[in-house]
């Protein structure tokens, strides 16, 4: 029972926070987005160079971390700074899948991901699918060509290579029959259409028009990808939960500062007891969110049933607390909290939209109940 970070992690955290503080701010991010750039390329290179991407992989995969608490640390800081760099899409999702399943020759990709030279993305969702991981229809038949659409592909337009989930047998919703295929984004017949998300990230729709793949492109054994997808989504859920926590910390701190500085009716609005008590509740719930992140980080390598129980508990709690923190931060700020030019807007959008990633509060509440009934 020890809640102190190890010395290595404490150092990494300090360094990451310093780099992000020095290199990101709201003005810069707005200018970047206005220019059409998907993220800050210089910062991306720096993160790779400093080993931030390597911290997300264990030693046997070429990194120097990869544990739940490493992921939590990195993403909490990214969330706190409001980074929009494709760490989640390339390292946790794409890189995580290749590292778990890739053959020796494919593992070279992981080293490139860690170096920031290659970016991967995971093309999984399809039109009309929701949060069910097995809801995949894109068929890979004996002719080894793909035709269809993948949506909401995070970082898809900036990736050189996609990990694509495909169905080789069964029907949408079956956990059996799923495979993963590596497809370069410049493959003939593949079209990537980029869009920006509400919270400023870059995503894409990917269409496949008779895109030919071969057996070499396969990640792992045919038809058995579901378990690894679920495991990588557990890691991704931890990542965005920690990111939401970091963004909540920023929103909370901005709000406390604002309460102290903003004068109304002749005094700082932080002197109004009704606002004080609401802020106290926000504080308590942010601590609960932190505990939820700790719980999932500490159970990321637990047996599947226990791990997934924490996945759903944590994502549900993060979603509930996130909505409270985001909405209270805006409300306690008043008008200024509604403006795009004030940094709070970015944190609020990110906190709220994270509920739409990897399952929302309702999805995970239902799943938590279901897992409990299965265990009983």
């Amino acid at each position, binding site marked *: 029972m020890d809640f102190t970070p190890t010395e290595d992690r404490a150092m990494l955290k300090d360094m990451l926070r310093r780099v992000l503080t020095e290199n990101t701010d709201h003005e810069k991010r707005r200018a970047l987005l206005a220019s059409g750039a998907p993220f800050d390329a210089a910062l991306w290179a720096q993160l790779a160079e400093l080993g931030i991407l390597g911290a997300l992989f264990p030693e046997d995969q070429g990194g120097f971390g990869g544990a739940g608490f490493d992921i939590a640390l990195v993403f909490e800081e990214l969330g706190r700074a409001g980074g929009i760099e494709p760490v989640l899409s390339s390292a946790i999702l794409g890189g995580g899948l290749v590292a778990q399943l890739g053959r020796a020759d494919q593992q070279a990709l992981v080293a490139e991901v860690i170096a920031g030279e290659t970016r991967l993305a995971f093309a999984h969702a399809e039109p009309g699918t929701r949060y069910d991981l097995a809801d995949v229809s894109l068929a890979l038949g004996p002719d080894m060509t793909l035709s269809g659409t993948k949506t909401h592909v995070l970082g898809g337009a900036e990736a050189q290579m996609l990990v694509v989930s495909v169905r080789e047998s069964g029907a949408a919703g079956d956990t059996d029959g799923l495979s993963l295929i590596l497809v370069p984004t410049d493959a003939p017949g593949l079209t990537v259409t980029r869009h920006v998300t*509400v919270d400023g990230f870059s995503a894409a729709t990917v269409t496949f028009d008779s895109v030919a793949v071969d057996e070499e492109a396969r990640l792992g054994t045919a038809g058995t990808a579901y378990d690894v997808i679920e495991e990588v989504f557990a890691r991704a859920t931890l990542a965005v939960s920690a990111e939401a926590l970091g963004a909540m910390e920023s929103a909370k701190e901005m709000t406390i500062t604002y309460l102290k500085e903003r004068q*109304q009716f002749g005094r700082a609005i932080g002197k109004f007891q009704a606002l004080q008590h609401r802020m106290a509740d926000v504080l308590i719930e942010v601590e609960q969110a932190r505990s939820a992140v700790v719980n999932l980080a500490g159970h990321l390598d637990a047996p599947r049933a226990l791990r997934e129980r924490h996945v759903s508990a944590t994502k549900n709690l993060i979603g509930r607390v996130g909505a409270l923190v985001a909405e209270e931060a805006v409300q306690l700020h008043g008008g200024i909290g509604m403006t795009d030019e004030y940094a709070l807007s970015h944190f609020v959008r990110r906190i709220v939209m994270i509920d739409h990633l990897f399952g929302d509060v*309702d999805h995970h509440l239902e799943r938590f109940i279901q897992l409990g009934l299965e265990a009983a």
Partner: protein
Amino acid sequence: MDLSYTAEQEAFRAEVRSFLANNLPKRLSEKVRLGKRLTKSEMEEWHALLNAQGWLAPNWPAAYGGAEWDAVQRQIFEEEACLAYAPRVVPFGLMMLAPVLLAFGSEEQKRHYLPRILSGEDWWCQGYSEPGAGSDLASLKTRAVREGDHYVVNGQKTWTTLGQHANWIFCLVRTGTEGKPQEGISFLLIDMATPGVTVRPITLIDGEAEVNEVFFDNVRVPVANLVGEENKGWTYAKYLLTHERTNIAGVGFSNAALATLKQVAASTMSGGKPLAQNPHFAARMAQVEIDLMAMRTTNLRVVSAAAKGQAPGAESSMLKIKGTQIRQELTSLLRRATGPDAMPFLPDYLEGGDNQTLDLPEHAPAAAPSYFNMRKLSIFGGSNEIQRGIITKAILEL
């Protein structure tokens, strides 16, 4: 006690419904239904259609071209217009300036300005809020100094909704510095074409530039543009707050939002069945529907008292708070119903583009922006905290 409408009221409802069916352009209602943003000319189009029908100014006297509807009629119109996804009428001239002019303006002001509001010649915006003031409206700093036949105005207003389309602005300005902050405020009408007026749009959290900052740099305003007496502007502004806040509960909007939500929940598949049959989502949806059923009646109770001449005072604060909570919950549920499809940000589509290449459900692009936009409801127009303060003083007498 009688929950039913009179035969006259039912006939009126039928007339409204028929007018909407025959006159509301589908082009406009589809944009409203999908949460898209209307252009200036589209707003003007609906304004003109209502004016032609004589329904543009429900609460003005007939002598000035008003419809003279009672509170229940206004409520009926509001409900029907919202359910038909009619654009909202831009309220600043019609609902906010006009009552003040009617009550406190000179005969000349009424005769000059009121017809131009109806005709659409003048588009008014509101200059109340200032960057430093917020909920503490009376601490406003924009100054108007008398120089001969003019006031010279310096300062800044903010959160000016649709100010980018307006040619006139009605402002609260400081003309006196003695006594309580409320005492030195005047109500001034300013032509935005006057040299020294600058409008800067503010992009909000949803990505839309719906509000503006308005700067006044030595703007010369004829003294004839003062409404009522100098230093009495606070009284006129407060008059609005207690007497003219019809539809503050937003029941019509909520009815329409619930209808949209139900339709989306019925057509969105989740785990192999419609989201409307997911017990957790259904529970949230049912709860807000039940709250709305009660609020419709709460609203009618206040409206019907108002129709009997009892001016709604702090009751409108209660309606504002509950109405806000319900509207915000409805947009929150629509965002969540939309699931991953709520993530893409498609400003071109929202600004009116006919299609989007991502092949999303039609309601998806506006789901998250509307949710973020609706956070304003509990902030602007007297924050819900200010409303609780009013309730504390007026009803609880604490």
